[in-house]
């Protein structure tokens, strides 16, 4: 039962090219066919309306901060403080604010440099973490070597260790190994994603049949070739989910860069914006940094939301559940 919700590698199989609209329509039809017709539940029309209202309310709740940040990215500092928060005000400073992102306004750093750093950390860290998790998940799922179970439990156990208990000593080690203010100090720890390994092991278990691997072995294929040619194509949806999760994890990471970087040219967005907001608050209304913080926030979230909308169909929320089926 889990296998069907979890692994549908067929999604990625090459078929006749299907347009976006066709796919949407097919998915909608499939979803409809999978759902039990609502009237069978004996719902009253009023209840349905009430439920829809609840959805709308929660959607509003969800979108309020996003709407606020979009609207206020067009305002000057006085506009942010004194105009109605959910409507535009003069002057229309959107482009002015946007231009500020390319300047080192207060000497603490330039937004776009941080943006570039974040992309770099997220791409290398998240991509690397996904690759390592893919290899390791396959290794744990399809090989039994001495201590493999114990190793795996240690890795799962690492989920319980607070991030701080790992990050803090890293800082102390870095101080000795001259990794303070090195991008590697940020990227290398990001490669470790115990959740990713855990998810990939479950995913491989459910979507890469043992028989397939054995058949390839009998055909004389080497283990590396089996992995790349046989297993990997079946693991793609799982890997995409892990990739999304690890990229988000790096993109979100605050604690590690906060303590290991003292040079602001290496900051990722999270730390940079945090510093700005701190400075802005300390200087009261004088710093003119508020529009920058707002605009920076907007430019931070838009790429992530866009990425999610694009990659949504690869998202296998069910992966997080695969483990509990037994």
């Amino acid at each position, binding site marked *: 039962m889990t296998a069907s*919700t979890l692994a549908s590698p067929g999604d990625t199989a090459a078929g006749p090219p299907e347009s976006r609209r066709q796919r949407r329509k097919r998915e909608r039809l499939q979803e409809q066919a999978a759902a039990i017709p609502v009237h069978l*539940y004996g719902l009253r029309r009023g209840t349905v309306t009430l439920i829809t209202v609840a959805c709308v309310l929660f959607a509003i709740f969800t979108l309020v901060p996003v709407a606020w940040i979009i609207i206020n990215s067009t305002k000057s500092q006085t506009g942010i403080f004194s105009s109605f928060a959910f409507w535009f005000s003069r002057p229309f400073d959107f482009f002015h604010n946007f231009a500020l992102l390319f300047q080192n306004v207060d000497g603490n750093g330039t937004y776009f440099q941080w943006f570039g750093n974040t992309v770099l950390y997220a791409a290398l860290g998240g991509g690397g973490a996904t690759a390592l998790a893919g290899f390791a998940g396959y290794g744990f799922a399809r090989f039994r070597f001495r201590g493999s179970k114990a190793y795996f439990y240690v890795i799962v156990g690492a989920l319980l260790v607070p991030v701080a208990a790992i990050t803090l000593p890293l800082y102390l080690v870095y101080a000795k190994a001259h990794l303070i203010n090195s991008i590697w100090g940020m990227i290398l720890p990001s490669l470790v994603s115990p959740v990713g390994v855990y998810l990939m092991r479950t995913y491989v278990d459910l979507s890469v049949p043992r028989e397939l691997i054995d058949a390839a072995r009998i055909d004389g294929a080497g283990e590396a070739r089996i992995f790349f040619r046989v297993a990997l194509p079946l693991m793609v949806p799982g890997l995409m989910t892990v990739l999304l999760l690890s990229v988000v994890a790096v993109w979100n990471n605050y604690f590690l860069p906060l303590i290991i970087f003292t040079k602001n040219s290496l900051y990722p967005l999270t730390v940079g914006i945090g510093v700005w907001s701190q400075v802005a608050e300390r200087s009261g209304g004088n710093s003119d940094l508020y529009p920058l913080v*707002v605009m920076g926030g907007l430019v931070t979230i838009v790429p992530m939301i866009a990425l999610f909308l694009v990659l949504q169909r690869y998202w296998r929320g069910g992966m997080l559940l695969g483990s509990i089926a037994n």
Partner: protein
Amino acid sequence: MSDTALKAPRNAPPRTAAARRTRRSAWSRRRDRRGLAFVAPFGIAFTLFTIVPLLYAIYESLFTSRIIGGTVFSGFGNYHQVLTSGAFWGGFVRVIVFGAIQIPIMLAIAFFFACVFDLGVAKASRLFRTIFFIPFAVPIVVAALMWGFLLEPSYGPITHLANAFGFGGTNFLSSGLILPSIILIAIWEWTGYNSIILYTALKSVPRDVVEAAILDDTPLWKIILKIKLPMVRPAIVMLIFLNSIGALQLFVEPEILSYQGGSITNTWTPIVDVYNTSIANAQYNLGAAMAVVLGLVIIVVSVASMIFRRQRGELS
């Protein structure tokens, strides 16, 4: 097969278990090593960037650096200090209160919407799903900042709203209201994500079971609470577990809100305490001890809950 095996008397036991074991392992040891090769890259990174730091944290926690005399071994001195620190435990209680309020509210809302999506009741449920998921893509730092602006005591629109409803002088970032504010932020951040996971779990409830319930004339509320809910219980337990671990490590929201004038003490949560102790006050050893204590508490609680559930037969 060896010659001796061939010459073995006919009524001898057919190959001992030990012999069979060596034969099998001789055959599979080669494959073992290949499996290890797949795990190795992660294993090396894991060792270097998780195990070693963790051990190093434990090691460091056993020392104390003094202004005069440098770093000296102090045994469990740091632990004694942490365990007897009222501020540290105060932070601990705070995150427990935070989790005890935020997680049930969030999961209730998430389960409600997961059911709505699963039933297909709302029109455009796909659109709602996408919208609800948006906060997951927003970095917590930015989420906290946005809410910080909205809740700001002088110009924040939500403060204005509270004033308009007669709650003049409300300060959401004051020491009395900052915990509810952070709960609100956390609910905003995580409800959609949890809801999607529960939705996936609900989808795996076999359709015919629900249809059987319909033919049994089961009212909707009972289908949801008495049939679907018990069937997705493992997913809910897992979410409670993951969210609890997250709650105990609450850091970014209070830290960012403190920049925006929020009333956050240096020991507001255990991790805030760890951060301020080790980075701001440069007492690394003490900070390390705090982190270790926090980790131990998490591990003890998880293992205890697992044993408890196993005893009740929920885990195999």
